[in-house]
């Protein structure tokens, strides 16, 4: 734990903090000076036109890309250079814009993969001693599985119980033994959230959770996301295109355009921001309608 961050004081230490994160692919600045703080109970929105860098921001936070500049802290620990699975172990879970379920696995097994991966390792991913301990623990786990020890069997039952509970929370109990690829679209999205929750995250990143859903499903989803935040005591960050959904549930919104943060604040404030309207609707709209609405 780095002391510098854990003494932030205030009501709560931030669970996720990005400070001036920039990322550059060759000459392309995909993200410039991106900052964000998520605390427990937060429900933040990240919006912007297509190609604004929203998913890039997600990928930097989760360790898929390494930031060119700036720091990311998860749970008080600097995570630059860590692998995605290590960052996940620190309490950060995500869903994907284009659904990435384990298609041939049943719904239950999808969630069990996530539940297990978490139990196997401890969040102390740094340090040689901890690494050795992890490696040893891992080999012990293999032997336990090969010998079907009672401890292993109990653990399997516990994993199944956890996964079943998450399926129930997401209203997917009836799909338990169905292969993920056979689920309808909306349920696949929900299964992705269930799987992410399986890793017992502190922060949940949702990448366009409502994409492809109908109005009714979207409304349900809004309620569900709020409920998850409260029940699982999460901080949630949502990327979304659907303005109604974002404005409806998020308490704080960050707007990206061309990799730059052009606005941040409460929904009402962001909605009337001149730059935001410009980014979304173009200059011509502003000219013909005479400024911000």
């Amino acid at each position: 734990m780095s002391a510098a961050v854990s003494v932030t004081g205030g009501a709560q230490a931030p669970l996720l903090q990005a400070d001036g994160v920039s990322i550059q692919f060759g000459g392309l600045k995909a993200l410039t000076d991106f900052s964000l703080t998520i605390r427990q109970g937060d429900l933040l929105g990240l919006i912007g036109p297509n190609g604004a860098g929203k998913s890039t921001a997600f990928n930097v936070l989760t360790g898929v890309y390494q930031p060119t500049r700036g720091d990311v802290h998860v749970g008080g620990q600097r995570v630059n250079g860590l692998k995605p699975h290590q960052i996940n172990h620190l309490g950060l879970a995500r869903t994907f814009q284009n659904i990435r379920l384990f298609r041939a696995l049943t719904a239950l097994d999808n969630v069990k993969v996530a539940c297990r991966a978490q139990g196997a390792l401890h969040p102390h991913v740094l340090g040689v001693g901890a690494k050795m301990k992890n490696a040893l623990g891992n080999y012990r786990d293999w032997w336990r599985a090969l010998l079907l020890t009672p401890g292993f069997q109990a653990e399997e039952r516990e994993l199944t119980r956890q996964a079943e509970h998450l399926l129930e929370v997401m209203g997917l109990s009836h799909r338990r033994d169905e292969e993920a690829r056979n689920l309808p679209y909306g349920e696949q999205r929900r299964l992705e959230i269930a799987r992410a929750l399986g890793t017992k995250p502190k922060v949940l990143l949702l990448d366009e959770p409502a994409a492809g859903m109908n109005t009714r499903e979207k409304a349900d989803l809004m309620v569900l996301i709020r409920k998850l935040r409260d029940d699982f005591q999460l901080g949630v960050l949502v990327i979304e295109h659907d303005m109604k959904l974002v404005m409806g549930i998020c308490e704080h919104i960050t707007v990206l355009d061309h990799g730059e943060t052009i606005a941040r604040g409460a929904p009402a404030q962001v909605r009337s921001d001149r730059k935001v309207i410009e980014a979304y609707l173009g200059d011509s709209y502003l000219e013909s309608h005479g400024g911000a609405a």
Partner: protein
Amino acid sequence: MMETPALPVPEARSVIPAGLRGIFPVLVALVLLALFQWLVSESPFAVYLLSVMGVNIILAVSLNIVNGMTGQFSIGHAGFMAVGAYISGVLSLNLKEVALSFLPVAASDQVLFTVALLVGGLAAAACGFLVGLPSLRLRGDYLAIVTLGFGEIIRVVVQNTNAFGRALGLSGIPQYSSPYMVYFWVFLVVLVARRIAGSSHGRSLWAIREDEVAAEAMGVDTTGYKVRSFVISSFFAGIAGGLFAHFVPIINPGSFTFVKSMEIVVMVVLGGLGSTTGAIVAAILLTLLPEGMRSLFNALGTEGSLAQKVDQIRMPIYGLLLVVLMLSRPQGLFGVRELWDVLPRWIPRKRRGLS
């Protein structure tokens, strides 16, 4: 034919104490294998054919852990087999005159044989680790290229090393192997493969096969799991090589060429990538195929020459088989399922899912 005993279903209420459930199938296998050995030991041809078949099953099932379950593509399995064969072969050659004084001669031989096998297997596993670690950190086809290279390197090294008999090969390795030993290892590799498939490790491997990016994001240490599955697979390939070295009269580099690697890949693909029982069935079929062809040509009385050339015309036939398979049933015989999933409905089965 030897059938591996059914594995205990985790949910099953059984009379076996929980602590013993893990090794109970092994105990059953030991008894069944003794019976099996007694049945076949009369016919040298049956012993030989069954041993070859057993070795092929071990190779196919172990390769399936990497190519099927983990979704990586290794095409150098014969290389690991060669490592096991030569290391354990040389060890046995050098320990030929040694006997453990406190044991009867036969028992002492078997103990030394087991030690030689394990050393060969561990050497192959170590090679697997060295080959796997750099190439499995990356996503994509690197493993295929590296394993292909590895297989050839091993072959060339053996060909140019005096201790390994160069191109002439090693002869005079004591013939310690027996169907009992071969099928004990067959049983073991199947048990390991199935137990892995039914555990969280197996689920992680499947997850990597399905979507590596998502698996990583869900906290699965993808590199670690890939390397470990590759090491386990290499270990059993080494064991298979060791067994092979102890029942054939001579091992030479020609036994471990790229053709052998492809033969194993064909078995796994034919059986269905990811299906352990599929790999077993395919290994049995492809071992019997040349023998069947030989008898067929002999029966047809085709000049006698065709029957002798079965080994050469085998590969085109494998190729044809693969083409037909890809056209008619691209997922292989069983797909990712197991034998008991494709049995007729009235036979009770496990519930769907991996565990």
